[in-house]
């Protein structure tokens, strides 16, 4: 087990190393002066410039520069944003909770819809129910998410006028920033009569969450269905049946658990799709998260932000992937046995 952990951590560290190397070289590769690209400070006097150049070790070897860069990264110093002149890390921490919140709800919806539907389809294999679920999920799977988002807007917002199309909350509600997670912040705020505010926040959540959840849900349904089918065909289910367990008991005790196990490592993958889709969804629904932030940074040629967000977002994704791998090994005895044996 320890060897396995070391292997995984090794993978993590190597990838992070390569990423940091790339992010570091961007500072030199972006057009313009590298002192400015690394620090984001645009109006410098000559002395300040010379001092920064020395601090960043830009006159020394690339290796030394890289070491200095890493030191800065570990100290959380990603420089200043060109356009807002505020610290990149602070901006990142401001937008990250919004993305995380949206992804979390989408994941929740994915699990709540995907697992039961997949299970149902798997059990009722080759019946009408299975075919309906399977074809709907195949259709949903092949709809590009940006198109789906626009379709939702057209139908639910512009034609039916049920739901808002942008942002997290009506801007007239001035909720102070505490955790960045909106529903928590509303609870922490000292407004009276909070119900309309929650209601407004939920209305803003529905469309982005549905849009975002569509693709992972279809993936989950597919995975769950095939897992359930293979579990249902296995010998121990037959044994359980001959023992006289009811279908409900079989599903609860054997099928669900065994079908879920192989999905856990897939969550890492699911998370990747979710992250990339989050960025697109954020842009469609003007959700003030990482995707929105990164896109604006690209339009504004805000190099420190592009550089930092590349490193932060990809490190985060790799971290989640490795974590889900490790979790899977901890939970699933079969894999553990493979590694040890």
């Amino acid at each position, binding site marked *: 087990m320890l060897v396995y952990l070391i292997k995984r951590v090794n993978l993590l560290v190597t990838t992070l190393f390569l990423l940091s190397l790339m992010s570091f070289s961007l500072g030199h590769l972006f057009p313009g002066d590298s002192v400015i690209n690394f620090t984001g400070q645009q109006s410098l006097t000559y002395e300040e410039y010379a001092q920064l150049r020395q601090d960043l070790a830009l006159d020394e070897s690339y290796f030394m520069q890289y070491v200095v860069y890493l030191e800065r990264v570990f100290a959380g110093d990603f420089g200043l944003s*060109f*356009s*807002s002149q505020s610290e990149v890390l602070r901006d990142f921490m*401001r937008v990250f909770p919004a993305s995380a919140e949206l992804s979390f709800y989408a994941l929740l919806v994915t699990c709540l819809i995907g697992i039961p539907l997949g299970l149902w389809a798997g059990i009722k294999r080759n019946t009408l129910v299975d075919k309906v679920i399977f074809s709907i999920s195949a259709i949903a799977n092949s709809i590009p998410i940006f198109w789906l988002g626009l379709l939702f*807007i057209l139908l*639910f*917002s*512009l034609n*039916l*006028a*049920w*739901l*808002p*199309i*942008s*942002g997290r909350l*009506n*801007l*007239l*509600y*001035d909720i102070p920033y505490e955790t960045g997670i909106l529903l928590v912040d509303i609870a922490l705020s000292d407004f009276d*009569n909070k*119900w*309309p505010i929650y*209601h*407004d926040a*939920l*209305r803003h959540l529905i469309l982005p969450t549905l849009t975002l959840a569509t693709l992972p849900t279809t993936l989950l349904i597919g995975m769950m269905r095939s897992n359930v089918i293979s579990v249902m065909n296995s010998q121990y289910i037959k044994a359980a049946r001959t023992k006289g367990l009811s279908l409900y008991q079989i599903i609860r005790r054997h099928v669900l658990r065994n079908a879920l196990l192989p999905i856990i490592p897939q969550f890492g993958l699911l998370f990747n799709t979710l992250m990339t889709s989050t960025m697109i969804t954020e842009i469609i629904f*003007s959700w*003030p998260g990482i995707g*929105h*932030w990164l896109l*604006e940074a690209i*339009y*504004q*040629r805000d190099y420190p932000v592009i550089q930092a967000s590349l490193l932060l977002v990809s490190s985060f994704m790799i971290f989640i992937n490795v974590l889900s791998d490790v979790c899977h090994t901890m939970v699933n005895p079969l894999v553990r046995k493979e590694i040890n044996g």
Partner: protein
Amino acid sequence: MMNNLTKVWLSTGIIIWLCAACEQIKDKRLKNGLIYCSEGNPESFNPQTTTSRITLDASAHQLYDRLIEKSDSSDQLVASLAESWDISDDGKTIDMYLRKGVKFHKTRYFIPSREFNAEDVIFTFNRWRLNTHPFYASADSYPHMQSYQLELLIDDIQQVSSHHVRFKLSSENHDFLTQLTTDYMVILSAEYGAKLALQEAQSQLDNYPIGTGPFYLEDFVKDEYIRYKAHENYWQGKTKIDQLVFDITPQSSNRLAKLITGECDVVAHPVASEMEVLQDRPGISLQSKNADNIAFWAFNTLKPPFNRSEIRRALAKAIDRQTIYKTIYYGMAFPANSLLPPSSWAYNNNLPTITYNPEQAKKELQAAGIEPGFKMQIWSAQIEREYNPNSLKMAELIKANLAKVGIVVEIVEFEWSTLRKKLLDYSYDSVLLGWTPDMQGPDNYFIPTLSCPAAVIGNNRAAWCNPYFDNLLHNAAASTDLKQQKDHYMQAQSLLLQEMPVVPIAHSLSFLAKQHNVVKVKFQPFSAISFKHAEKF
């Protein structure tokens, strides 16, 4: 059977409940605030430092007051922070008697201890007038004042008593009082300045504004929103709305959608192609403004070969402007031949029109030594401007036109404030921009955009400096005879057409769309938007 019936009832119930949940709950807090969907990020919150309309919209009338205002209906001068004024016989000394009891904003970053007085006026004007002033260097330039050379016009400003200031002018200038009513002449707080100077935080003066205006700045999150709250002690009485939010929405189609769903109360610059959708929509009304602006294609005349007027003229001939009117303005614009719109009294009717003639353009370009395959850049903003609803698309049309005369165009697009920053380096070949006048009178079309002082500070996008042209403008301003003035302006326009530092493209109508229940938004020529009197029912 019963079981199935229950299911049907249950699911119907859930669907009804869900739909009910979709309806927005009526909340008084929403009625007391107003959301304006604006098109971009302001560069700062001080109009002195820019000519960008977005910055002016976000600051000039929301946060500040001027000494004198223009009346809404006519061009009469109305007392504001100055209660009254006297002009000496020689026109060189102007006495201003200031209003008492005017309070500055109280915000989380500054609490004023005194009311408005003469010190504030002197601080405000000296800030851009004197290069020795501690705050002078905290902004790159003061484009409006510097292109009009107001720092040379004002000799001195003296404090006579705590509420009496005296302006000494170097020469008589009949436009000076009108200058004071422009969006740029906002009054800042000297006390706040002193506090910032003590903290050596000079740059905050423009980003964390303090003024006397109807709203104060609560919060600005770039690319997301600007939040203003009503100034409780506003000297004209507290505004009807408690809160004003600028929802920054760069895409015009998004703004339109948000207006329809009711997420915006007022939206900036609905583009011509969307007018039809808006006109038929119940609950939405449109306000329009005359086509007094000008969209142009400016060449960087510092950069060869664009320093040669024959090349600029040839390029102008290669542009099919008719297609531009049809596909970009949808007929909501007038063709432009000069920077001045035809409605102006100084417009030169005798100017030859710029005609589309690619063959001749090609010949002229070859004669000037431009080989086929010549590469050039066109810079363009991503957002709609009053004068240009779609500058990217315009750049693409021009690209296609120029391809026919053998020129390869690369379009470079920027976010608005980034574009403005990058333009200051004069590293571009050409750029699609325009101008919306802030003052009545023809010289506002020429002085801030094409004069030599404007070229020095970077507001002259063609970087074109022609002393003869400046002289014509100067003579026109100095003359009191209308016929003579007109004569000078006519000559200036002919010179521009001959020299072609910028290719005039169109004068566009501009619009504001809003919900029916919002009234009294001030959307008028020669002024940025104002929500001072806005109400929501």
